[in-house]
């Protein structure tokens, strides 16, 4: 793309190939790509995510050789996989845990992007494509979770597709069209399987665009300053191929602990009960990575406004590059914003906790404290989720623009190489 490599085909065959389909040149350009030399481990999550996508696609294709997308057969086909197919249990746990590991990595990757200002000009397109990938991931995960056809699969699908009925006028027709009938049933399961198989390849294509968009301006770095010269960079291979490789292995260690020793800890026991349309489980809870949005959905007492709030929270993420008014990229040099950001992380974790609990459950149990505000006692998870949702929206709509405009930032180094030279000298830069 940017022609940074010194690739010269050496043999007759490679010259022939280079003149017709320069894939080796393309590969050389990727390997030689000048990458800032000061990237820390937060930057390894892109490579980790690529591995996660590969794992999900490969295990998914292999699982599809044994899975049957029919309501009377689906649950049993998954158990057949677990019991009778050679290493079937491994493939199933790898795929199921893999979805959680994929989301863990994507959340860390997004948090990195926000903290270091990677979404700011000229990298807005990378950020927007990333948000598209995130939406596609959530859709894919939701579709995939229905496939085992357990109680949680069925009821989660029912509750989330009911969201569409909140849309006035066109909501119910869309709902019927999406499901293929009046309620979630076999006709729904079949199409969910087809879409679940399709979307990961769409994700792979958008990931390609995401990396292409990255290679136009080049990587951001922890200082948030632009690359000034080749003294600031190293070629991607072997410096970052090996560093990413190391990070991937450490990530696989965590992955392996879950797959081999704690495979059920991230799921719900209810999903081992075959789906029963006539009986709702006591609690309907999505997988952990969707909990914050579930909390926001339930925080608003009005059905349509709850849906709008949930989608609004995602829309705000898309608007982030234009909501942030700061001239300084990296929060390393934005101490005020950094505090608001830490609170934002805590708020997101808090929202996840709210999503996991029934709205009416008291925050402080067994205590007859609090009073009724609106339709709920303030000592309840639903009121906590309202407060946290308010902060979430305020963070993007108020805090980001205002702080960027008014904050006192720390002095930003001149270049990536400067702090290193300064370390060797007398003056230490701000940190």
């Amino acid at each position, binding site marked *: 793309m940017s022609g940074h490599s010194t690739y010269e085909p050496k043999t007759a065959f490679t010259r022939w190939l280079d003149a017709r389909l320069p894939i080796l040149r393309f590969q050389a350009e990727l390997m030689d790509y000048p990458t800032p030399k000061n990237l820390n481990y937060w930057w390894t999550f892109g490579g980790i995510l690529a591995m996660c996508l590969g794992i999900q696609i490969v295990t998914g294709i292999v699982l599809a050789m044994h899975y049957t997308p029919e309501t009377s057969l689906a649950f049993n086909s998954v*158990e057949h996989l677990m*019991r009778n197919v050679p290493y079937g249990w*491994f493939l199933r746990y790898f795929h199921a845990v893999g979805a959680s590991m994929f989301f863990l990595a994507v959340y860390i990757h997004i948090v990195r992007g926000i903290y270091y200002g990677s979404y700011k000009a000229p990298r807005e397109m990378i950020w927007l494509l990333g948000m598209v990938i995130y939406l596609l991931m959530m859709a894919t995960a939701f579709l995939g979770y229905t496939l085992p056809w357990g109680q949680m699969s069925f009821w989660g699908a029912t509750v989330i597709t009911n969201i569409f009925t909140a849309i006035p006028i066109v909501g119910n027709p869309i709902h019927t069209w999406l499901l293929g009938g009046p309620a979630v049933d076999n006709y729904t399961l079949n199409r969910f399987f087809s879409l679940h198989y399709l979307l990961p390849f769409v994700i792979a294509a958008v990931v390609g665009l995401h990396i292409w968009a990255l290679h136009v301006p080049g990587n951001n770095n922890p200082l948030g300053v632009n690359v000034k010269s080749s003294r600031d960079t190293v070629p991607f291979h072997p*410096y970052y191929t090996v560093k990413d490789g190391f990070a991937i292995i450490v990530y696989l260690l965590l992955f*392996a602990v879950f797959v*081999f020793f704690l495979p059920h800890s991230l799921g719900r026991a209810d999903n081992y009960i075959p789906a029963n349309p006539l009986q709702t489980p006591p609690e309907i809870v999505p997988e952990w990575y969707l909990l914050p949005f579930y909390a926001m959905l339930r925080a608003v007492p*009005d*059905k349509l406004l709850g849906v709008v709030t949930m989608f609004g929270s995602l829309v705000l993420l898309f608007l982030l590059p234009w909501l942030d008014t700061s001239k300084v990229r990296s929060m390393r040099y934005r101490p005020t914003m950094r505090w608001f950001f830490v609170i934002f992380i805590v708020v997101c974790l808090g929202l996840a906790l709210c999503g996991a609990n029934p709205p*009416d459950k008291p925050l402080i149990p067994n205590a007859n404290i609090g009073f009724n505000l609106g339709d709920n006692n303030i000592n309840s998870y639903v009121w906590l989720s309202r407060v946290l949702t308010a902060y979430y929206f305020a963070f993007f709509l108020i805090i980001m623009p205002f702080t960027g405009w008014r904050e006192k930032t720390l002095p930003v180094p001149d270049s990536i190489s400067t702090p290193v030279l300064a370390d060797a000298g007398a003056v230490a830069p701000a940190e």
Partner: protein
Amino acid sequence: MLRKALVLAATLGLSLAGAAHAATTSEEPKDVHWSFEGPFGTFDTEQLQRGYKVYHDVCSSCHSMDLLHYFDLGTPGGPFYDSKYPKPSDNPRVKAIAADFKVPDVDSDTGDAIQRTATPADTFKDPFANESAARASNGGALPPDLSVITLAREGGPQYIYSILTGYEAAPAGLTVPAGKSYNPYFPGDLTAQWHGAGPVPKGGLIGMPFQLTPNRVSFDDGVKSGTNQEAYDVVAYLAWASDPHQVERKQIGFSVIIYLLLLAGITYASYRRIWRGIGH
């Protein structure tokens, strides 16, 4: 109008969800442990055999285990595995167990519905022909299939053991409807049935009466079959049936973790070597 209905539905939904949780109670499961727990857990084959006998003698008259085949009993790690018969369908013990059952089939000559002797390739025989028959024989309650039961309940093996051994006489003031039994470990809301003094008792009404009376099953290896022993063994069997590969999974996992730790060390050394001298 629509808006009012939506708000009402949402509020009802919220309050229903709240109510269902707030009032459902049960005792915490008993603190009991098995050999298969933990990262180095394994199954005790003798225990699995006793557990199978309890399932066969007591539970299988009401509870199906549709997802198991008879040959599963002869797989490595299973109750009747014999290394002389790597192919579990050849295992004579397994064949004998299967041959005790008659399963429905169709006569290939006449087309009539018949009962034929089961083979190891068959799934465990269902006690009832269909769900309606099962409910009719059990006062309207459906005895759940036990194939994945320890995974399908919060608290897993501890919960099942607590239910089986935890039956108590209903406290005075609790109305127990016919066909149900009081069990403090079974989740439920007894507010409507409680007419006594004091707080509503924890627990619920379970459709299954107490089953594991002492010496109901006689074990071939001579172990005394009290209630707790019968429950302990049958739960081990159910845990094996729910997740038959768990021991193999943990053993492979151990090797994988060791390999990845070594690989991480080597890769880190490679990384430091490459980056030597680069100030960053």
